[in-house]
């Protein structure tokens, strides 16, 4: 028992068998189809995948902000630092385990999120100082003057002069707006930071500055990070562990060496082969053929089967189970079923 206790204390986020479905009048969109994801304290977990893979929906589930028409996960549990965010009721449905007020106190204080587009994440009619101070006042019992002081401190921390706290968002460039958003997210010292494509809207030299700064702050405060991105380059730079997501499933999970040097899933391999190799400009691109499946009409077996060069008969009908290849590396692919050659790719 005591061993178990210690174990949970290391875990910041524990998602088990999360399912999110959006039911509309004529179809059910299966956004997330049973994922497990665990982030230990102080670690950065990369979630990589293409448009529509379910990355952002995963993040919104943690904050209990799943949009209409689902509004909550269909099944599964999420534990944040030992606290259950969802529970299963008598009918077997997944329901929020906390009151809306509790979620509000979690959002911003325990879990903060950085959104992709800093241009729309800030309110144009308040100064950036006010906006940072607002989240401080919501979560900490301080007066406006104290909160503003904290806001200025945070701005300095992200490399913006404190005197600019009185400026409005339109007076900042894109890179600086994203820094403001990061300052706001970190103002209450969250234990978990969700960064949803934090640098996608930024130029590459500015991206380098922002990533460097995020790395510094993460290490300074020991924040756990869920880094959502489509860019494997950013994963390589920022993360300890990686989950590769495809059509609402985590198809491969491992540490950096597992994913980058011992790639096992054909989809992960396809992602790498699609990227132009900066060290070898003559190398031909090998795109993944075909398109993402319609999430309202997923293939019966493995969702990647129609695009996979290694697909076998079984892949069409049976969804592959998770298979652990080592203590740190797992994959959902029939190529690695028992008795099969595990070094296939």
């Amino acid at each position, binding site marked *: 028992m005591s061993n178990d206790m210690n174990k949970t204390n290391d875990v910041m986020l524990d998602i088990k068998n999360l399912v999110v479905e959006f039911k509309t009048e004529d179809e059910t969109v299966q956004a997330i189809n049973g994922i497990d994801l665990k982030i230990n304290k102080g670690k950065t977990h990369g979630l990589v995948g293409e448009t529509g893979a379910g990355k952002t929906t995963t993040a919104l589930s943690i904050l209990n902000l799943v949009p209409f028409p689902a509004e909550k996960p269909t099944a599964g549990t999420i534990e944040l630092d030992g606290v259950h965010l969802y529970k299963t009721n008598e009918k077997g449905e997944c329901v929020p385990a906390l009151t809306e007020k509790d979620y509000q106190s979690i959002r911003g204080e325990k879990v903060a999120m950085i959104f992709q587009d800093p241009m729309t994440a800030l309110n144009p009619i308040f100064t950036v100082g006010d906006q940072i101070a607002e989240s401080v006042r919501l979560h900490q019992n301080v007066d406006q003057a104290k909160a503003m002081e904290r806001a200025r401190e945070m701005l300095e921390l992200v490399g913006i002069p404190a005197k600019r706290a009185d400026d409005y968002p339109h007076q900042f460039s894109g890179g600086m707006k994203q820094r403001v958003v990061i300052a706001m997210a970190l103002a209450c010292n969250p234990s978990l930071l969700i960064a949803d494509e934090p640098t996608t809207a930024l*130029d590459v030299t500015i991206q380098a500055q922002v990533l460097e700064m995020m790395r510094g702050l993460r290490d300074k405060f020991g924040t756990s990070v869920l880094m959502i991105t489509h860019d494997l380059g950013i994963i390589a730079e920022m993360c300890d562990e990686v989950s590769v997501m495809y059509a609402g499933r985590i198809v491969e999970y491992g540490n950096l060496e597992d994913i980058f040097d011992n790639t096992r899933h054909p989809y992960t391999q396809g992602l790498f082969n699609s990227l132009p190799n900066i060290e070898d400009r003559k190398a031909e691109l090998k*795109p993944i053929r075909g*398109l993402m499946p319609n999430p309202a009409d997923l293939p019966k077996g493995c969702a990647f089967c129609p695009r996979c060069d290694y697909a076998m008969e079984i892949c069409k009908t049976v969804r592959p189970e998770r298979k652990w290849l080592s203590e740190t590396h797992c994959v959902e692919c029939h190529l690695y079923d028992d008795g099969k050659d595990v070094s296939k790719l």
Partner: protein
Amino acid sequence: MANETKRDILLDVQHLKKYFNVAGGQLHAVDDVSFTLERGKTLGIVGESGCGKSTTGRAILRLIEPTSGSVYFEGQDISKLSKEEMRKLRKEIQIIFQDPFSSLNPRQTVSQTIEEPLKIHGMKNKAERQARVRELMETVGLAERLANAYPHELDGGRRQRIGIARALAMNPKFIVCDEPVSALDVSIQAQILNLMKDIQRKHGITYIFITHDLSVVNHFSDDIAVMYLGRMVEKAPAEALFEEPLHPYTKALLSAIPVPNIHSKKERILLKGEVTSPINPPKACRFASRCEYATDKCRCEEPELIEVKPDHFVACHLLKKE
């Protein structure tokens, strides 16, 4: 310089400028850009937002009128052509836009969209037009059953294929590709890049490829031009530029690319500060405020683009011709 005559120059841009009048004065979007482009080759233009790369592409095609400068297409100065003459020439010079979501008419089907340029340029026979549409759809890999689909029914990759088919319709010699894959996922991006390369190989088309993605431009281009705040700061063959970037900005830009390789031990040059305003820029090197090597000369005199090595052009006071 001696072998210049042997080269088959398709496009020769001289002192191209585009200034916009804005509230605070004049915005120098493109400021004195000159380059030549050989037939059948690809020139990549890279730079960050606001550096003037898209404006350069559009000013060459006169989709926006340049403030001054000349654009010679097959020896003819197209910046002097009348509207009517220009319209005829548009068969030869085409553009593929960045966003396949906003560059297609939502009320036209795939075949109508591709057919339109054929109509405009006088292909009168309907059967002939439809045969050409089918041929183009096959070239860009669009299934025939999609001929009557509307853009909203298609994903980004397929929409971009329509944009490419439309650009190819009149057998152009030259296409400006303005961030053609930026809106697409990597697996789809690779499909489109391969398609565009195939088309170039088959039809000998010359491309200007505008992008902010350095690994894509490296893969796709023969020559690469780097722009910064309206100025071309470096131009070189792709290999030379990536192996031995000379301009301090190019060096920083290349070092900032996140590489999807956990063993890559790249030294990162972090730039200080942000891009300065292109409105009424001072007579100085525009990169001087962020450059760690900047001298007094850089702050009061604008460097010219000079050829420091064969085919390697740089605009920087620190570099002299070898």
